[in-house]
């Protein structure tokens, strides 16, 4: 009886399962692919290929340096600088404006270089560095003797700012309002950034400046600017005097006045500034890719796998904006695609003093994901040749071509 009851259950459940299957099929067919990612716009068709944005393409990487259709070949004169932001020789041209008569100096390795620039002049500051400047010579009433010692943080070239920095000068303006803020013990931070296109409303766009004193308390102008665009220069200054007379104790126990060298541009002593700090090239964005270089190598470092053949570049390292192990060129390394599928960062430490987040997991998702062209696996080549019998061959000017036979 029990078996019979079970059989009855099966005979009733069979069409029910089909009903649910049919309902599921109806749901999928009627919704299509739109519901798979919530937006419905990024689901790929079988023939769709997605590469990183053009400005992020670099070699080696997806869509570059490989055989097959849709893969762009490397051309030395055009792509050599792609992905080279952070180039050590790159410089940002800064123009100081706002205060007529303002004199600009800066810190050098063994002291200060005064009178190097004047208001309205410009200078090429090497990127990824912080400089200590010195502003004097203000002509605004009440601030004639004021000396300011701002720091100038010059960010590296980003693909978004490359076009602008290649052609335009970054203005750094010091206003009377800034001087007033400094006189009232306020620190002023000016962030000069290039707005993202979606944040540009004017037909002719340019740089924008965020000033800390105009923002609500607690809002970081640097973070705010990073949300709006790409930062090129950050100027910070307060009223701290960095050239206060100091004394040091001599060997005989007496105090002597400490001194430092001062160069003057008025006397032809023009000396480039010395950075007081360097900025890591990848300070912004997601962490860089970490892939082991292979036998005996350090992650991301070139190795010398063959004696006498010199160093090899770290093939297999992706040079795109995400660290999720994008498939590399199909022939690399050694004919195999780069196989890294995921990178997980976990903090396993158990600190006793102040414990940070126990487990840090960075999930990065491209939308749509990278999908490159499959390498060529099979080439079939077939030729068909014309045949002719003796006496059936003609060529221009021959008697047969003119129908004389």
């Amino acid at each position, binding site marked *: 009886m029990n078996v019979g009851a079970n059989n009855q259950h099966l005979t009733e459940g069979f069409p029910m399962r089909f009903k649910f299957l049919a309902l599921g*099929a109806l749901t999928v067919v009627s919704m299509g692919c739109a519901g798979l990612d919530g937006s419905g716009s990024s689901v790929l068709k079988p023939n769709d290929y997605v590469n990183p944005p053009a400005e992020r393409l670099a070699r080696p990487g997806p869509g570059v340096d490989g055989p097959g259709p849709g893969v762009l070949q490397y051309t030395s004169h055009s792509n050599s600088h792609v992905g080279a932001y952070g180039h050590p020789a790159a410089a940002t041209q800064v123009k100081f404006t706002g205060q007529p008569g303002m004199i600009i100096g800066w810190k050098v390795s063994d002291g200060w270089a005064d009178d190097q620039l004047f208001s309205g002049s410009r200078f090429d500051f090497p990127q990824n560095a912080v400089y200590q400047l010195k502003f004097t010579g203000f002509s605004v009433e009440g601030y004639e003797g004021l000396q300011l010692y701002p720091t100038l943080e010059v960010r590296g070239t980003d*693909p978004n700012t490359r076009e602008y920095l*290649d052609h335009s000068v970054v203005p750094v303006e010091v206003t009377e309002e800034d001087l007033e803020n400094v006189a009232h013990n306020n620190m002023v931070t000016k962030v000069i950034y290039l707005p993202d296109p979606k944040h540009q409303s004017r037909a002719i766009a340019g740089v924008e400046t965020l000033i800390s004193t105009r923002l609500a308390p607690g809002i970081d102008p640097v973070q705010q600017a990073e949300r709006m665009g790409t930062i090129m220069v950050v100027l910070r200054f307060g009223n701290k005097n960095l050239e206060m007379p100091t004394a040091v104790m001599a060997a005989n126990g007496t105090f002597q006045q400490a001194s430092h060298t001062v160069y003057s541009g008025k006397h032809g002593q023009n000396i480039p500034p010395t950075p007081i700090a360097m900025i890591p090239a990848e300070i912004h964005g997601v962490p860089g890719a970490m892939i082991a270089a292979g036998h005996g190598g350090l992650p991301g470092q070139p190795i010398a796998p063959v004696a006498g053949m010199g160093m090899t570049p770290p093939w297999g390292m992706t040079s795109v904006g995400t660290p999720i192990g994008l498939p590399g060129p199909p022939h690399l390394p050694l004919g195999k695609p780069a196989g890294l599928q995921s990178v997980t960062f976990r903090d396993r430490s158990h600190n006793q003093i102040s414990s940070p987040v126990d487990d840090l997991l960075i999930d990065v998702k491209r939308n749509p994901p990278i999908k490159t062209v499959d390498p060529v696996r099979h080439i079939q080549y077939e030729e068909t040749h014309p045949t002719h019998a003796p006496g059936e061959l003609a060529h221009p000017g021959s008697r047969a071509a003119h129908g004389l036979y």
Partner: protein
Amino acid sequence: MADRFSQLLTLVALFVTASLLPVPVCAQQGTFHQPLNQRTPPGLSAGWLTHIRGHQSSWLQPVRIQVPGGAEVSVYSGPGEPAAIATSPARVAVNPGHTYRLRLAHMPEFPDAELYPSIEILDRLHPPAGKEHKYPVPVPFSRDDIRLALAGRLVTRVIYLEQPQLAQQLDPLNREIPQTVLPSENVLQEADRLGRPMIIIRLGARRPLQIQSSSMFFGTGGAAQLSVNDESAQQRFPRISKTAMRTR
């Protein structure tokens, strides 16, 4: 039996209904991915297009650089001395696929100004043999462009060869109001819609001082030479074909 038949009938009805419902499209139909735009690093677009189209590296495309009121035009293809110096309208021949830096100086209408725009040669013309220099691609700089650049703005123009079906009736280079697109739009794509992009012009206020923004600041090493300055040929220059689109 009749019950099972009705169930099967229901299933069939469901499948038929599902197959008749409109199926949403997973990806946008009729749109194309446009990876290149005016913000891609200078030189990238020209390099790609040259590779795709397979331009002869020996071909030199004549261009005519026009500055209102006249100017001394220097053409750099790399660091060092300029490859050519001429007076506006300057006629030089340059390599497709390469980027050049110009120097505009001694402009009577902007006496103290000195500008260093760049031109990125995307494509070439195919004139009749022996008449290459009669059909230069114009590289115009308007007064507004120069004023905006001196005010700290970056002006980007795309010169394109108009499609005959979409060609404007009036001389496009002398129109009072240039075609302008928003910075958020892809000016290269818009130019491609209207014709064949030939040259990207980028004009800002940066001048070369001690250190440049990149090793390619002065150009990508293409060839450049002065063209025949045939005024009569300029008179015959057709008013066709090239127009400019600006952003920023």
